[in-house]
């Protein structure tokens, strides 16, 4: 059974974090309308005037590149697209009426947008006390930096994480890239499900503020509580050695190895250099291995560099040593592990074609979600909303469409 069947969501979202929140909810059966602008295309639909071939199926932008971009199409499965100009009174009235028939409104633009549009929680809740409104600005709705714009990498900097990640003596590192966005997406979905749980019992909706930087800081909570700066040392840790990624056969090919005890080291040492190395006092204890870590890394790299990273990782794991190939996107596509988890679902997109799509790691016996439809084409849901959801009279539909309030092709130059 899909747990959110019958729940309707309106998304005023862009890029990754907001759409991922909607994606998680639609995974569970919610009906979501991703509101898009005809004048300012979602960056994840790419730039129509400068299409980058790398983002499209078969490297071909086609006639509708904005419908073929992997970024948008990855995060908007199961959704409908409503392209409407909110500055056009007729366009706004469409969205306002849709919100009135919905359960949840998600916004991941800067603070104040909903109020400016007349869609702020205070106003909406007077007429719709059961509405749930989620705003997810990077730095929160109030505070000296709340007006700052952000992207995943800058949020990682602001959250204190990047300064914890670096080569020795180097600058801060952003990861992922944009690792903060999916954290924000999951947090927003969690907040909405929490509010729905409360609403099921009380009939009341509420307003949720999700400051993405603060929410992500939960992931380094112990470090924040300790209050002591982490001095980054590449992949090294104070209490585990070896702990690093080592070169393997192939270009930019690596295997990660982590040895958590002297016993594990003895096993690894025998695989590398037999009993002689296992007895080598330079490495026989954690303290010794830390003191000789550069030599240790060189020794292991000299052993791994010509080996297949997948086979080596499997061999090490079989011996009880934590290891993994440092996998690439292509590895994941061909991963027997993810195949076993049914991570991918084949979906038909009318413009991008039929492809396997990555899923979500959420597995349940009674409330299993799924990817059911590919991401929507630009404005695909416009007439569906006018006719099926709002059930407007034909004359009004004609007037709205004639006004230019809606579109199925982005305006030139956006």
């Amino acid at each position, binding site marked *: 059974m899909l747990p*959110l069947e019958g729940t309707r969501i309106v998304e005023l979202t862009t890029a990754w974090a907001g759409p991922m929140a909607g994606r*998680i909810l639609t995974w569970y059966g919610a009906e979501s309308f991703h509101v898009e602008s005809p004048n300012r295309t979602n960056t994840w639909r790419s730039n129509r005037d400068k299409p980058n071939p*790398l983002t499209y*199926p078969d490297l071909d932008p086609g006639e509708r590149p904005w419908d073929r971009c992997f970024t948008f*199409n990855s995060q908007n499965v199961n959704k409908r697209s409503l392209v409407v100009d909110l500055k056009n009174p007729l366009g706004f009235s469409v969205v306002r009426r849709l919100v009135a028939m919905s359960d949840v409104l998600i916004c991941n633009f800067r603070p104040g947008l909903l109020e400016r549009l007349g869609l702020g929680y205070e106003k909406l809740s007077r007429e719709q006390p059961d509405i749930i409104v989620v705003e997810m600005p990077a730095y929160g709705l109030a505070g000296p930096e709340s007006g*700052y714009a952000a992207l995943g*990498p*800058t949020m990682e900097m*602001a959250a204190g*994480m990047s300064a914890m*990640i*670096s*080569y020795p003596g180097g*600058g*801060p590192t*952003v*990861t*992922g890239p944009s*690792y903060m966005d*999916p*954290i924000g997406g*999951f*947090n*927003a*979905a*969690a*907040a909405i*499900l*929490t509010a729905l*749980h*409360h609403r099921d019992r009380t009939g009341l909706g509420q*307003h949720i503020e999700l400051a993405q930087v*603060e929410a992500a800081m*939960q*992931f*380094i909570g112990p470090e924040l509580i300790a*209050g002591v700066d982490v001095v*980054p040392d590449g*992949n090294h840790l104070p209490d585990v050695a070896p702990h690093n990624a*080592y*070169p393997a056969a192939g270009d*930019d090919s690596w*295997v*990660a190895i*982590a040895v958590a005890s002297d016993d594990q080291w003895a096993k690894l040492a025998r695989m590398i250099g037999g009993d002689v190395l296992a007895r080598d006092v330079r490495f026989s204890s954690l303290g010794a291995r830390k003191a000789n870590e550069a030599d240790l890394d060189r020794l292991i790299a000299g052993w791994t560099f010509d080996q297949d990273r997948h086979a080596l990782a499997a061999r090490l*794991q079989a011996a009880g040593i*934590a290891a993994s*190939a440092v*996998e*690439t*996107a292509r590895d*994941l*596509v061909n991963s027997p*592990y*993810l195949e*076993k988890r049914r991570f991918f679902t084949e979906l038909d997109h009318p413009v*991008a074609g039929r492809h396997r*799509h990555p899923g979500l*790691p959420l597995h349940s016996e009674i*409330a299993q979600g799924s990817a059911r439809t590919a991401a929507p084409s630009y404005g695909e849901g416009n007439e569906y909303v006018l006719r099926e959801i709002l059930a407007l009279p034909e004359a009004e539909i004609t007037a709205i469409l004639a006004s230019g309030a809606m579109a199925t092709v982005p305006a030139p130059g956006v």
Partner: protein
Amino acid sequence: MRGALEDLVVLDRSGTIAGQFCGKLLADYGADVWLEIPEAEPDIASGGSGQTRTPLDLHLNLGKRRGLPAATPDVVLCAPDENPQATRTEFPVAVVVRITGFGDDGPKAGWRAPEIVLQASSGMMISNGIRGREPLYGTGNRASYAAGQAAYVQILASLRVRAKIKQGDIIRIDAAETAAAMCFPYVLQAIYNGTDRRRGDQDIPAGEVLCRGSWVCLWVYSNRFAALCKFLRLETCLTDARFADAQQRSRNWPAFFALVQEEVHDRDPDDFVAELQAMNIIAARAYRISELRGSRHLQNRGFWRRLKIEGDEFVVPAPPFRMSLTPAIQVGGNADATA
């Protein structure tokens, strides 16, 4: 009202960061969470040995009670060696949650899964660091926290179905699969056209510069390039062939940011970020942990909470989201505290 989840009783015997973080979120929003420390060693990051008042314990277990609940639990976060089927037999309408590294079946079942292994297998780590050097993993236990967050989401989804069909559930979350799902979606790009993106491939108009004592990351989209050059008195860049258009700039960002670096090395990082943001240039300071405690913004927002436990004082971060009707539980905390 105690919180949005005040009707829930949770038994957290997971013993892992992932499970205990999930339990923490449930407690933050009102559930009655009971903590037991299992003896079995997990395959993913441990939540600790039960020692109280450590930073890890404070973060994961504040607001939980230790022991067993008198009431039948609605949610059970399984111990590492716990058979979820048996637990469901014991509690037929409970939502039983098992979080592991690589699952109980499949080609990697039973693999040891410390953080670096989870991140390596996720497709994320290969994006980090400098091409030619070892890829960097994201310090901390982010795959475990993400798995806990995923478990929280699935628990609330399952409880909605349970309310209708009056049956319990078994939830299975793999930290490895969660980490893969948190990756930038290059996997769909690989499916679309066979390309295999990694470090150095990203066409990103961004760079980092070291201001007075702190690094600042800034993104220079094409429509802000001229404004930044004028602001930093780098007008010569506007006529420099290396930076003539977006394509040229993407090839020459290191050279451009080297010039920016010369101009900003003695600037105050907070002032510089504020100036850039005022020009609609996205920027942020790379805070160190110790600097975050002093952030005027976070203090102003009441992000830090000061706790006193048996005479000792601790400062902890606020829960992840703020709900207007059912605010998160404050365990002896003072939202106005400054660190």
